[in-house]
């Protein structure tokens, strides 16, 4: 059943509930942060509207910098601002930032310990019709590998807003991951959120499998958990919005309790959330694991729903993975 303490939206399982892209939450979070702190500045690389940086740009024109199509300069300029008392957010598509400017982020932001927040947009295969060039599916891996970098993957627009506001208050580099397409808004303002702290969204009485997810696909995992319960397969669904630093204690204790794990993410299975969880569990609580995500392939153009279906990230795929991991348990 749903964890009542998670205070999820009443419409969580409804197809008619509210929907919004997580990038909208970023835009709202920027305004809130900008109002609270004059040091918050925003940089964009010719994707101001699409990354939802426009409202900030209009409200605080003196604190907004249009960089043009030049992501490397944007990152290193932000690094200079970040060591000079400012709290810069850099906005672009994740395939370009942190894709193209990864080295500038590594050297001038992470190693240099500059207070920069990197917002990667259009992540995951559900970026859709633009095709694989614009679908960032390796960004968690490349950012997670970097010392002194935090990685937060919000599951809906409300959590995206909270993550944006929270990251402005954390000293140091943070990577925030957003998606393009509308997805269900299934958390509420009351849903607990603290960077680095995983939250249980679904918990059955005698759970046999732990489903760990991040990003909007987490809601699909919740639907799968509900369907599985009808088949007497009990589970826990854990929202690991912060992929780095990982909430190790919670993941280890729940993995021990359940005895098997399925990770769910709209990202390559190599090096993403699943990889991060496996690194911890192989050390501290080895249990059978299955990984939902892109299986070492690039995406293509299509509708988000078609792509998630074709590339193995739909609700039935999660159910199948759960059944598979349970078989391996015995």
């Amino acid at each position: 059943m749903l964890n009542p303490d998670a205070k999820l939206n009443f419409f969580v399982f409804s197809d008619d509930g509210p929907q919004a892209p997580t990038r909208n939450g970023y835009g709202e979070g920027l305004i809130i942060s900008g109002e609270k702190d004059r040091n918050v500045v925003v940089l964009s690389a010719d994707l101001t509207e699409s990354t939802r940086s426009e409202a900030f740009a209009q409200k605080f024109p003196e604190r907004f910098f249009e960089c043009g199509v030049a992501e490397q300069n944007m990152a290193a300029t932000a690094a200079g601002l970040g060591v000079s008392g400012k709290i810069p957010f850099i906005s672009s598509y994740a395939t370009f930032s942190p894709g193209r400017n990864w080295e500038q982020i590594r050297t001038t932001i992470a190693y240099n310990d500059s207070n920069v927040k990197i917002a990667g947009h259009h992540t995951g295969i559900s970026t859709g019709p633009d095709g694989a060039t614009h679908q960032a599916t390796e960004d968690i891996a490349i950012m997670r590998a970097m010392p002194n970098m935090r990685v937060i993957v919000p599951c809906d627009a409300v959590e995206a807003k909270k993550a944006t506001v929270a990251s402005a208050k954390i000293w140091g580099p943070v990577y925030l991951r957003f998606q393009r397409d509308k997805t269900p808004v299934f958390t509420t303002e009351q849903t607990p959120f603290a960077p680095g702290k995983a939250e249980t969204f679904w918990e059955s009485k005698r759970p046999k499998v732990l489903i760990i997810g991040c990003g909007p696909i987490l809601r699909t995992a919740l639907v799968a958990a509900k369907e599985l319960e009808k088949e007497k397969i009990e589970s826990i669904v854990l929202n690991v919005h912060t992929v780095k630093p990982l909430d190790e204690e919670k993941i280890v204790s729940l993995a021990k309790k359940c005895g098997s794990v399925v990770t769910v993410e709209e990202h390559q299975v190599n090096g993403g959330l699943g990889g991060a969880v496996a690194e911890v569990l192989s050390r501290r609580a080895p249990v059978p694991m299955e990984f939902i995500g892109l299986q070492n392939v690039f995406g293509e153009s299509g509708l988000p729903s078609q792509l998630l279906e074709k590339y193995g990230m739909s609700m039935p795929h999660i159910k199948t993975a759960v059944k598979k991991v349970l078989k391996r348990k015995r």
Partner: protein
Amino acid sequence: MEILHEKKLKYLEDVASRLRQDVIEMVSRAGSGHVAGPLGLAEIAAVFYFHILNHRPKNPKWPDRDRFVVSNGHTCPVFYAALARSGYFPIEELKTLRRINSRLQGHPHRTVLPGIETTSGPLGSGISQSIGMALAGKLDGNPSTHSTGSGHGKYRVYCVTSDGEHQEGNTWEAIMFAGKNKLNNLTVIVDRNNIQIDGFTENIMPLEPLRAKYESFNWHVLEIDGHNMEQIVDAVAEARAIYEKPTVIIAHTIPGKGVDFMEHDYLWHSKPFKSGEAEKAIKELRTLRGKIESEHQ
């Protein structure tokens, strides 16, 4: 900035010569590192740290300090020497360059060493980082955007960059941005020494006409002899007087300057000393210092 009178000039020439000797000693002791670039930058390092910069070595985080950014991080030995000799950290520590547990990393790292404004080494991002500092200064100097705790942005930002670095796309992204935003508190100094690892810049990937390139990106351009300290001081003074543009000072320098067998030879960009070579170089520098002394007497 005070006037550069004759006595100060003599002092600065002596500092530059001292820094050159430090560079040879440091790199030779470390067994690796770059020599030619740092030797060519000795006058620039001396005149900035001992005359131009508004800074407080004993209070390296002073908010109003001028920012001095070394984009071509591999030339750090000469700037480490300048930092130590101007009082940021003990001179003795120069001996630890590139050693384990040292604050003097092979390429400069901001968070460990006082006086280092930003981490650098991978080429092409220093002008961008300087732009960020210049923008922050503008914001802090603006009553509607300055925040509590800021020094109100009274500082200037200086960035030393190499000529080879102008082959990086990032460099031109930055030059475009600074021109567009009329960052008059930013001054870039190009160490135009014509060498890079694989050879002479104009053979590897021609940069000329460099002046025209900067001008077409809406920068104010000055060209000087990078070993002439009066010219360096005059150029910086002119840059401060330019209100509508950022300024670039193209400083023509001689790589390996001061050591006869190293001058102009690109192979000295990063090659280690063989036995006896460092001693020979230091001997030459000592002779040069002696000459400077006698010229001023």
